[in-house]
């Protein structure tokens, strides 16, 4: 059966349509969730899409954190529900403390909008299991605040516990450097492009797999990530009742 996957729309979201399209390509039923919704409409998983939620005022993602729908998303995540944040969605998840770290202004001060390459660190997670091979995967980034930061102890922990999902890479698949390496578009520490939480059910990444799901979009390297998410949501949907949140 095709899982129902929510796509949260904040005022200022602009990649929600791409997320909806990617979910359809991957065989899921997208359900658009407005930010004022206090419930998730019984969906099997949730995507927080890219954009500039609430204008990115104050700090990217922070105002969105306090919206009614994010209260529902936090409860859903606490119950083990699958949540994927892409770009601005990743920023929202770090501000909401559902993911570790923070996303700082790009080291080179520029908004970057171009293709990058990333390699998955793990192929056995709900977000990467359908990728198949280690890549490098080619997909776009488009952000001004994507420099992943956490203190050294936290970074060590993330690496030790297998919470680093993706790193920026050069064309030959080797990991990008931190500074002065164009393969790392924003100066992210240890070239980290995506992470997941300790429980393994919430993940975020700055690049846009949802806009790289068909050859006509320039790359379909992102489809493996979307398909992983959709397959994992489908499994959970058939395993039993999806996690009930907020009186569905």
């Amino acid at each position, binding site marked *: 059966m095709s899982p129902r996957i929510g796509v949260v729309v904040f005022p200022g979201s602009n990649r929600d349509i791409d997320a909806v399209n990617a979910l359809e390509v991957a065989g899921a039923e997208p359900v658009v969730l407005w930010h004022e919704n206090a419930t998730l409409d019984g969906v099997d998983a949730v995507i927080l899409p890219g954009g500039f939620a609430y204008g990115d005022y*104050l*700090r990217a993602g*922070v105002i969105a954190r*306090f919206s009614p729908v994010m209260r529902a998303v936090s409860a859903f995540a606490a119950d083990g529900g699958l949540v994927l944040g892409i770009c601005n969605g990743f920023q929202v998840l770090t*501000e909401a403390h559902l993911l570790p*770290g*923070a996303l*700082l*202004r*790009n*080291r*080179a*001060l520029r908004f970057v909008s171009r293709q990058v390459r990333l390699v998955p660190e793990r192929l056995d997670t709900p977000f990467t299991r359908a990728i198949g091979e280690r890549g490098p995967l080619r997909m776009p980034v488009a952000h001004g605040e994507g*420099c992943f*930061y*956490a203190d050294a102890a936290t970074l060590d922990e993330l690496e030790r516990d297998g919470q680093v999902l993706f790193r920026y890479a050069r064309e030959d698949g080797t990991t990008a450097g931190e500074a002065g390496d164009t393969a790392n578009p924003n*100066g992210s520490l240890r070239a980290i492009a995506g992470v997941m939480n300790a429980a393994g059910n919430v993940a975020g990444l700055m690049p846009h797999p949802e806009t790289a799901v068909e050859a006509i979009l320039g790359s379909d390297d992102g489809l493996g990530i979307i398909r992983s998410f959709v397959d994992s949501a489908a499994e959970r949907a058939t395993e039993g009742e999806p996690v009930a949140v907020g009186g569905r």
Partner: protein
Amino acid sequence: MELRFAVNVSPKPGILDPQGRAVEGSLGHLGIEGVSAVRVGRRIELTVSAADEVAARAIVERLAAELLSNPLIEAYAIETLGAASSAVGAPA
């Protein structure tokens, strides 16, 4: 009572601050020497209505810690500016 506060938010020591670095980089163009360690933060001013100053300050503390700053990367300092004047925020 109505009190006016300012919350000064700045990047924590050691946190990369590309904005501060950009400002620093421009100093040479102005012919200024001897300036270093530029850090760019933000200042938020607000009026709080509460029973007394202690209660008002507690509200600002919560606001500063939960919304105005990200404790992972930013530090904040609260200033009490005094009684709120009706002119605050009014167009000049």
